[in-house]
């Protein structure tokens, strides 16, 4: 385990970030889109923790940042899911293709 370098971890986190972006742009289900956003936030978490551990082990900025990101992501998901439930009540669907009241 000791010979994993920061490069590998950064590769994972960057890949996760772009998987999240791809998921957000291609998925049509609102819950799945929310999950894609969580992937993006988790890639950031990995980044912060690994930078903190490998490069600046004497300070804890990155780890604290991660904890706050997790907490805020929970708050964001709570509001988003409340909105999705409300949309489901009005539209009987959570497919973004059905939310098309407003277009160009």
């Amino acid at each position, binding site marked *: 385990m000791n010979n994993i370098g920061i490069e590998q971890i950064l590769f994972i986190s960057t890949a996760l970030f772009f998987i999240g972006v791809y998921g957000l742009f291609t998925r049509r289900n609102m819950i799945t889109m929310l999950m894609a956003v969580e992937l993006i936030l988790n890639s950031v978490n990995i980044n912060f923790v690994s930078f903190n551990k490998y490069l600046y082990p004497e*300070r804890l900025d990155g780890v604290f940042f991660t904890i706050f990101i997790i907490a805020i992501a929970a708050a964001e998901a709570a509001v*988003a899911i409340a909105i999705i439930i409300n949309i489901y009540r009005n539209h009987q669907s959570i497919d*973004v293709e059905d*939310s098309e009241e407003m277009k160009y």
Partner: protein
Amino acid sequence: MPDNFFSVMQFELVATVIMFIVLLLRLGKKRITGDSLLLVINGLLTINLLVGFFCNAHGSLFGDMFFSNPLICFQKSILNLGLLIISLQSWPWLKNHHHTAEFYIILLASLIGMFFMISAQNMFMVYLSLELATIPLAALANFDLQLRRSGEAAMKYIISSAFSSGVLLFGISLVYGAIGSLNFEVISIGMSANPLMIFGFVLIFAGFAFKLSAAPFHLWTADVYEGAPVAVTSYLSVISKGAIVFVFITILYRLFQNIFDTWYQILFLIAVLTMVIGNLFAMRQQNLKRFLAFSSIAQVGFILIGIGGNSSEGLTASVYFVLIYIFSNLAAFGVISLVSTLTGKESISDYKGFYKTNPLLAWVLTLALFSLAGIPPTAGFFGKFFLLMAGAAQDNYPLVIIAALNMIVSLYYYLRVVKAMFMEENADPIQKLKTGVSPALALIICVAGLLLTGLIGGAYEYISSIV
């Protein structure tokens, strides 16, 4: 607790106290509703605004995470003023609403987030307060629970804002990896043009451009503005945008001063794109709220030109423009919200013959649109003039010429509304509307601000003295 705790954090503390008073009013046994509740809240918001004028504290708190000086106090006062005007305008809408108190609690939470964001001296604080400012706004966009488009707007807003903060965060994490600190002071010294930092910078820029609704990232704006209740739309387009502009300036001028050459090129491109796209799309809109959404995108382009000046003039001109923009945009939204609340009509063709039935309101809307277009003697002209002056200091004349051409294009669509109101006949015009006391008061404040901030030069000089 340091001695200056209360004076430095005055705005945040006052807003928090008001939020809790409103919460207690909601929870109290004797339920206050309707006009009396709104009277109490608007009184509190007036106090909030007035108390803000006495603040000129200079100092930092929480280990240099939070900072305040007279300029920051002035920016917060601008936001307070905007909130008061919006609150007065939304009186007729909230009077019969079941959740008036909740509306204000969420609104104030978001305002507190913006206060912290303006004062932040640390990327960590910037992120936390940005989320505190945007998550409540998504809930507010959904405030007309039964309307389909309201929920749709909220969904679009929360997904795009979550995505943009994800992008912003990734940028912050890369900058943290390159420099090892989140403090503005340390980052600004350590900043250099190496690839990792530039990648981080581009992501941070993109995150903020999303929130500003600058051009390639503007797609959410029109839908959210159209679907959300008018009070929330005006809050989003004026106060939220103003706060983001202030913090964006701080970040570009302080954090990334060392890589000015890089960010100037990006800013140039985005400013041109934003103006052109905002103007072109505004031309073909029929719904007035959508129309104002695209016009506000175009205005952001002008603000970006001023920011590109990279000087204290650029900062002064941007703050001055935001002040004027609050007056002009809120005057326009005030009339539209009145018409939309009382009659439900929102499209431009409904406004044909508006002058015949409501001459005063038609004049207010005309003044507001003239100010947005930048026609003297309204304040909008001076705002745009100073922005272009600041932008021209970089000797980038193509940018200034494009901006001037865009101002001419924008005249076309602003005057289209004026033409519909004054010159076109309509068999079924909007009937004579009864303006209540508080919307009228809000419109008077806006019109006075529109005319006075331009004609009396004190505002610009005051801002430039505290920059």
